[in-house]
């Protein structure tokens, strides 16, 4: 494992209870991005849904904010091996967006401003397990963390929690997103270390 520098600690704590295998706990909130940060004003933001039959729905900011809102406390686990515990968010459960939608699809592909995509089984984003969040720690979600709105799916690796989210397509068959088509796991459960496909 190389030459150990006894005075070098890094910033991490490791192997704590409640932390998936191979993860380090960090106190700060690293900014991860695979491209430039899009700057989207709330007035320009629209979230779109399309089903496998081609029907669609759209929510602008005001309509989106009239949907049910929930406060969420969650641990985050990034595939680059940091975890951040007890983060506070506010947003709309994905259930509320999909409420009453007629679909047989079993998978969802989320789209972001800037071109990012990620795929998830619908069962992983329904049942109170995923949110479209717009507040972090009681303040508007800043662009570097995905504002105005990001997906939050805390039980999966954080690349599934797409930043700058702008839409979702419901699809009958799973279709890999940005990282998933580049060798990352289609599902991404940190407790099973589903890092690579």
């Amino acid at each position, binding site marked *: 494992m190389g030459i150990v520098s006894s005075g070098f600690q890094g910033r991490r704590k490791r192997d704590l209870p409640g932390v998936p295998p191979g993860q380090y706990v960090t106190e700060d909130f*690293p*900014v*991860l*991005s*695979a*491209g*430039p*940060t899009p700057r989207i004003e709330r007035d320009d933001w629209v979230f779109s849904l399309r089903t496998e039959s081609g029907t669609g729905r759209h929510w602008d900011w005001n309509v989106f904010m009239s949907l049910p809102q929930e406060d969420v406390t969650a641990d985050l686990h990034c*595939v*680059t091996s940091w975890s951040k515990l007890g983060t506070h968010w506010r947003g709309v459960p994905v259930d509320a967006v999909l409420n009453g939608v007629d679909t047989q699809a079993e998978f969802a592909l989320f789209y972001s401003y800037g*071109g990012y995509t990620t795929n998830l089984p619908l069962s992983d984003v329904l049942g109170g397990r995923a949110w479209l969040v717009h507040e972090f720690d009681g303040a508007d979600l800043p*662009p*570097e963390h995905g504002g105005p709105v990001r997906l939050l799916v805390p039980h999966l690796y954080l*690349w599934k929690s797409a930043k700058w989210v702008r839409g979702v397509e419901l699809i009958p068959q799973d279709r890999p997103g940005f*990282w998933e088509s*580049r*060798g*990352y796991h289609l599902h991404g459960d940190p407790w099973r270390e589903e890092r*690579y496909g």
Partner: protein
Amino acid sequence: MSEWTGRPAERSAEDDYLDGNALAGPLSEVFAIDITAALGTCGTCGDRRAVAEAHLYVNAPAKILRCPSCGGVLLRLDERGGRVILDLSGFTQLTIEVR
């Protein structure tokens, strides 16, 4: 090129990329000559410039190199468990000077 981590709070998110130059170390594990000095042609927009001049995003599951003109993904480099996974499919061509 001092330290590539430890984000000072005042930095803006637009600064979150490096030069492709920073790929020289990991690519030296794979290639006998320096690829960052090669001229690469972007498969998305056709822009042609040194790999070292493209924009490198390192705070991500894998290192992603993007075209400074169009933002298209040029290269992905993933180092894990003693293996390097290299995806060069964003380039249509690399012109390498052989000294």
